[in-house]
């Protein structure tokens, strides 16, 4: 996810092919080095969907279809903002 742009595909490949896996690992490290968080959406675990936050490529399940990178969370604005509809 990129602010102002939404979803952008960074890299695609098959982890079973060493050359493509290397490219995926490089892209993964590049994003984490840039301060992004990485999440892998997982399918129904105990009747609900959730995400796994991963900090290393080795933590990504081999059968994962995708890893989503998003800016790391930070405390929001402390000031009172306008609310209501």
């Amino acid at each position, binding site marked *: 996810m990129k602010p102002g742009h939404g979803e952008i595909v960074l890299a695609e490949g098959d982890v079973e092919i060493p050359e493509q896996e290397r490219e995926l690992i490089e892209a993964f490290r590049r994003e984490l080095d840039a301060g992004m968080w990485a999440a892998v959406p997982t399918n129904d675990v105990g*009747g609900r969907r959730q*995400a796994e*936050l991963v900090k290393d490529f080795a933590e990504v399940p081999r059968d994962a279809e995708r890893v989503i990178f*998003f*800016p790391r*969370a930070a*405390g*929001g604005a402390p000031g009172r903002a306008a*609310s209501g509809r």
Partner: protein
Amino acid sequence: MGLALGTAAVVLVVLLWELARPSVMAALSRARAAWAERGLQSATGYDPGRERRAEQRARELLRSCVSEREWDMYSELGLLCVRGPVRGGAETAGESPYAYLIYPHKPIVAFVPESGELLSEYCVAFPDESRPYGSARLPDSDDVLAKWMALTGDERRLISEANMHLPGRQVDPDRVRRDLARLSRWERERSGREQAGSSRAHAPQTPGNVPAA
């Protein structure tokens, strides 16, 4: 004497110009190119549909990650409700000790599902650290998905990163109460529809409802 000095000055100026001309011309050429590029960007850089397309992509991404029930909730009510504790808790049952409401670009609101009591607000943002000043925001649905992923992925980490405030700091408590009432009504109606669908599916087959061959 004066004529000689004047001639020497003119020769000096011409020599200096000849020496400096290549770098001056190169600098002028660079400045011209930069000016032209800036003009091109101002003519084509603004795309009024970009944010709309980004939001559309974000909605598709969110839909592909959350459950069908959660997607229906977001598309119909404009918010997501995540029951806590996130790991090992139930998705719909009323026995959860607390739950979170996720709004786009607003704090996460924690509440007690049984009583509707508001517990706290967790102000959290996902800033673009590569552009610390004036960075653009995530599209609404990406902001919701980022909160959802961070919450379901590591509830403690997200809560520890957020600024916690009492209810009412940024989100109007009356609005949250109205949203909780809408959510409760939505859940009743949805479970009613699901029960009706399930009872129809398990109804005994009578001659009147045997499907045509």
